[in-house]
């Protein structure tokens, strides 16, 4: 069970990331931005468990849908499933460094982010004439890759803490 101060802390970080994600153009490459929210959801899932991860994914995704003019419920569903998938790699006894500070975190991020983008683009292209596969291969993989690259930063920061300690 997460303590109240930590929950508040996660809440603040989550809201901040939401705002940064809305203004992520400054780190965009060819209009592709890393999905910081899904990265945070994956972090929560491997750190705090599957249940926390999927609830956080749903809540943050829904909030993001509302503020980003996206299809309602789409980010909620995709991010919740990403949290759910990442939660399978949760280990209760693992420390922060073990959970996040190893290359394992990169693979979890890549997998969960890929699932997130498959779900997201599957529903995203439905109202339009776009074909899912070409669109996903063009954007979905790029978003996944960039998010994974960003998770490397998180991994390295946490791993560095371990070395310092």
């Amino acid at each position: 069970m997460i303590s109240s101060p930590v929950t508040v802390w996660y809440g603040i970080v989550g809201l901040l990331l939401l705002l940064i994600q809305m203004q992520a153009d400054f780190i965009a490459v060819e209009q592709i931005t890393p999905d910081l929210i899904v990265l945070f959801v994956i972090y929560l899932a491997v750190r705090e468990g599957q249940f926390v991860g999927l609830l956080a994914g749903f809540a943050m995704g829904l909030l993001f849908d509302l503020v980003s003019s996206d299809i309602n419920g789409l980010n909620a569903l995709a991010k919740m499933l990403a949290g759910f998938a990442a939660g399978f790699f949760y280990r209760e006894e693992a420390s922060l460094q073990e959970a996040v500070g190893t290359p394992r975190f990169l693979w979890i991020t890549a997998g969960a982010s890929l699932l997130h983008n498959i779900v997201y683009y599957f529903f995203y292209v439905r109202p339009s004439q776009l074909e899912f596969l070409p669109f996903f291969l063009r954007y979905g993989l790029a978003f996944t890759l960039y998010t994974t690259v960003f998770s490397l930063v998180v991994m390295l920061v946490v791993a560095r803490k371990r070395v310092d300690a």
Partner: protein
Amino acid sequence: MQRILDFVLRFKEYVATTLLTIISLVLISSSSNTQLRSFRTVSVGFVAGVQSAFSWVPNPFALKSENRILRQLSRDLSLQAIQLRDDALKGEKYRAMLDFRQRSPMKLATAEVVGRLSIETRNYVTLNIGEKKGIREGMPVMTERGLVGRVVGLNGNYSIVQLLTHRDTRVTARMLSSRQNGVVVWDGGRNLVLRDVPIGQKPKKGDTVVTSELSSYFPEGIVIGTVSVVEDEPGTLYSRITLTPAVDFSTMEEAFVVLHSPDQERLDLERKFMEAVDRPTERQEKRSR
């Protein structure tokens, strides 16, 4: 009931996932909900404010891309500007030509210069009209600025024009102000020379020289050029008057052919006379050798 609660608690992740998936799908299918839309309007306004506040944060990737786009745009606009300037100049020229054609008492056929030919000191241009448009050999060619030369060869669709800047060019001309006649020839460079003007007739710089009514080929009054230098020809009683041609032959793109054929009877007579005059001279030369 207890069993159900136990089951839910035991598989809370799956139960929650199922429930939230259903909620998400319901939301996706009812995304046009009015209440949600009004909330979204408020939230988008808030986010826009935040985005505006952080808009000063630069994106190096976007800046690079923006620079590339701006450079491309700048190149395109430069090309467009050149094109527009060119079009404006052409428009101005065509207006002047049209105006000239309407005002001119002569019958004119409009032509485009489609080729240039330069053989040593003989300069020609090719026009894209020929016999099919009523063009005949000897017809004068001009622009709205002045005389260009005359047609010396042609076929159905093209004409070759001998320019004033040709070593064989001889045009009987007169000063517009003093009506003094002379012969215009090419000086071998960029200018023309008016010869055979007596020293006493001192023209002024800037005076206009036009074709004379004595010319065998050209109608009277077509501008040839303006006086730029006047000097005495050493050892003769004549002045050497340098003229700046009215037409810039190097940039000429369009021209008019004056539908005026020289009087063939007169040309034949003049040619025969010249031959008759030249023959005794040749005999004398042979004798003196």
